[in-house]
């Protein structure tokens, strides 16, 4: 009987079996490592390539290139997993590997083949079997596992490490460059972010849900004065009203209406006051105009209602600058300054276009010389005319924020450019040239003509019939506003 327990033969067989198990484990581990390292190398290189492409290529090219790369990585994954399965050795193959490596002339594999064939406990398969076992036992002391598999870790780990380092480096470069910039969201200001989060969320929600402008707590500029600005806002809002911006569909529909019709709808349905766009504080601070503006805005709750008293609180240099501006206007000014703009300019703008026109004229006279638009304002003299020079929309009562929030207009360059275009259009609509606008009489005459045109437009609109679909839109909008 082969392998009777306790016999010398059984001890030798146990020794052979133990050695075989260790060799097999080491070979399989080595083989698996090699394939995994190869796979890891390819994956790391692929990831590095994808990251590089993401930073350097356009989205289209990145998409085009990423698919083949991902497919190649998938194939590599399958290939190396299959290789792991194929190269996984059983006892017979392990013994053959040992024979080949150590040139044992198939002694070891023949013995193992007999063992795996189940000769233990059975009659001897051959009278030469003891000789084979004895040979292998003797040879077992002559070779070690390291002779079969010299290294525990294959050299394939080196390219894997290099590829991994490359991938990490490529990932780390943009991260390091972005970390150098001041991030608005970091662990340092996490507490502040959390505290401000509800307020920001409510503001964002209100912005999304609101089509009509919010009531302004600031004294607005004259609609006459900001006619061009309003048109510029409208143009910008229309440009930015893209489907992907999550704007309410009603707002898009309402904004697509003719401007005059929008104004008319507002006045007829709600009589909302003209809302002046919130001035960009950053621009005003940069230009040193904020104090003067605050002096002209008694409706600001943070300021005293008396504009004169506010003017007194202005810094001396600001007061002097105002006075200089006032003097600079020469005789064409009628002695008005910012303090003298008085209550007419502070009255909330409501009512019909005629009433607003009157107020705008009075306001313009009072503010002339004292009120100067910011350099970024579209009413800069370089735009070709004085502030409030009688744009066609003056006094129409149109809410300057009808086209959106003031933040949209904070981009001075856009506002300026659009205002230029608008002013240019208006100038061409009128028949007067720029040279005619230089004297005051020409300006007034042009303003009156423009107002007359606007008034006639208002009358036409008032008499015209509002389409049913527009009424439906407006009703839906205001129903939402009331519910909110």
């Amino acid at each position, binding site marked *: 009987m082969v392998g009777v327990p306790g016999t010398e033969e059984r001890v030798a067989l146990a020794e052979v079996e133990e050695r075989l198990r260790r060799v097999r484990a080491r070979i399989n581990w080595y083989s698996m490592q090699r394939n995994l390292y190869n796979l890891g190398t390819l994956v790391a290189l692929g990831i590095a390539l994808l990251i590089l492409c993401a930073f350097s290529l356009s989205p289209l090219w990145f998409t085009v290139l990423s698919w083949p790369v991902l497919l190649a990585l998938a194939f590599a994954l399958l290939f190396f997993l299959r290789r792991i399965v194929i190269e996984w050795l059983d006892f*017979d193959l392990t013994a*053959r590997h040992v024979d*080949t490596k150590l040139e044992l*002339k*198939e*002694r070891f*594999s*023949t*013995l193992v*083949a*007999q063992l795996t*064939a189940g000769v233990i406990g059975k009659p001897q*398969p*051959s*009278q*030469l*079997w*003891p*000789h*084979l076992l*004895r*040979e292998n036992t003797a040879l077992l002391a002559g070779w070690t596992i390291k002779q079969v598999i010299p290294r525990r870790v294959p050299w394939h780990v080196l390219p894997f490490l290099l590829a991994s380092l490359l991938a990490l480096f490529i990932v780390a470069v943009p991260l390091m460059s972005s970390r150098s910039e001041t991030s608005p969201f970091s662990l340092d200001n996490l507490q502040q972010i959390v505290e401000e989060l509800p307020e920001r969320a409510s503001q964002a929600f209100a912005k999304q849900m609101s089509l009509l402008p919010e009531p302004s707590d600031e004294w607005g500029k004259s609609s006459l004065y900001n006619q061009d600005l309003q048109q510029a806002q409208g143009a910008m809002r229309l440009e930015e009203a893209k489907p992907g911006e999550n704007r309410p569909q009603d707002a898009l529909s309402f904004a697509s209406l003719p401007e005059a019709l929008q104004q008319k709808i507002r006045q007829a349905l709600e009589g909302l006051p003209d809302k002046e766009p919130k001035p960009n504080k950053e621009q005003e601070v940069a230009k040193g105009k904020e104090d003067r503006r605050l002096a002209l805005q008694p409706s600001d709750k943070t300021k005293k209602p008396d504009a004169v008293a506010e003017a007194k609180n202005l810094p001396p240099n600001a007061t002097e600058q105002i006075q200089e501006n006032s003097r600079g206007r020469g005789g064409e000014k009628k002695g008005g300054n910012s303090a003298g703009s008085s209550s007419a300019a502070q009255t909330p703008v409501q009512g019909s276009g005629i009433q607003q026109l009157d107020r705008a004229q009075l306001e313009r006279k009072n503010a002339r010389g004292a009120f100067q638009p910011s350099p970024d304002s579209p009413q800069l003299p370089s735009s070709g005319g004085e502030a409030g020079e009688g744009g066609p929309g003056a006094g129409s009562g149109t809410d300057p924020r009808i086209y959106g929030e003031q933040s949209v207009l904070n981009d001075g360059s856009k506002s300026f450019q659009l205002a230029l275009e608008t002013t240019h259009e208006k100038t061409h609509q009128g028949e007067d040239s720029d040279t005619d606008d230089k004297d005051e009489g020409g300006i007034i005459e042009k303003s009156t003509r423009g107002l007359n045109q606007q008034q006639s437009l208002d009358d036409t609109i008032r008499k015209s019939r509002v389409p049913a679909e527009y009424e439906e839109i407006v009703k839906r909008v205001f129903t939402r506003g009331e519910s909110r």
Partner: protein
Amino acid sequence: MSESPATQLINEFQHTFRRIETELAKVVVGHGDLIRDILTAFFAGGHVLIEGVPGTGKTLIVRSLADVLNLSFNRIQFTVDLMPADITGTRMVMDRDDGRRDFVFVEGPIFAHVLLADEINRSTPKTQAALLEAMAEQQVTVAGTTYRLQPPFFVLATLNPIEMEGTYPLPEAQLDRFFFKVRLTYPTHKEIQRIIGSTTTNTVADLRPVFERGEAAEKILTLRQLVRDVLVAPHLEEYIAALIHATIPVGAKYLNIGDTPKTTLAKDDFVNRYVSFGSSPRGGQTLMLGAKVLALLDGRANVSYDDVDRIAVPALNHRLVLNFAAEAENIDPSDIVVRIVQSARKLRR
């Protein structure tokens, strides 16, 4: 450390084999590889076909082998008019002691342990067939009566490659029954010098039998059983099968198309171009048994790849049936076998 019985058997086999080689070397100058092949076939239980020009020592080798083994020896010179009964024996009318006459079987020369069939290709196929039946089945049938040949039965046939007129080349089926086909090459310059010096004097080489007369057959049979006890791993069997299968050309007749072996070799271009029929399974048996003998000679109880490769040429070269293109281009079957063996080395891993 005492030797195990298995080790003693292997040592005895090695000792016997080497003693035979040594004794033969006394009378046969050179041809060491040929003698080893002949002895390999002998202990594997096969028969050998020796091809060589006249005067190179074919008959001497066989006769000397019989003397060394101390076995009975007969020689048949094959001629055109040789009849089967001249080989197997015949029934003759013999007088009994009581005066009556009866048919009595008289054994032919085939009834010997070692038989030399000299120039076997000069007899008719009918006579050749009588010999080949005895070679394959270790028996002869005469007048409806079967007579067993005494083991060990070993046939050494010779072929004369020249003077082909009036000869009958052995059919492939009969060639397949020979274990090995070996070629007796011309001796080297020094060997010729030794042959001339040793055979032209009054000194006769003293061959000492390896076995005693009565126990030779039994001992030889024991050694033959020992050969068959050599262990073979399954992957060696696969290797031999792949070698055999590699000799069969693509598109050969009677090829099993649905055969999808686990281990296979790409068909060599030579095989496809020059081989009509490949080796039979008997070629695989030859490879296996011959490899076992070589393993024992190496002191191993198992067969190795090298053993198989070592005997591939003598075991397979006469089993390949070449086509006309091979004859036209003077392609030797041994070259094809060598190419197959070389391409089979990748199966060792």
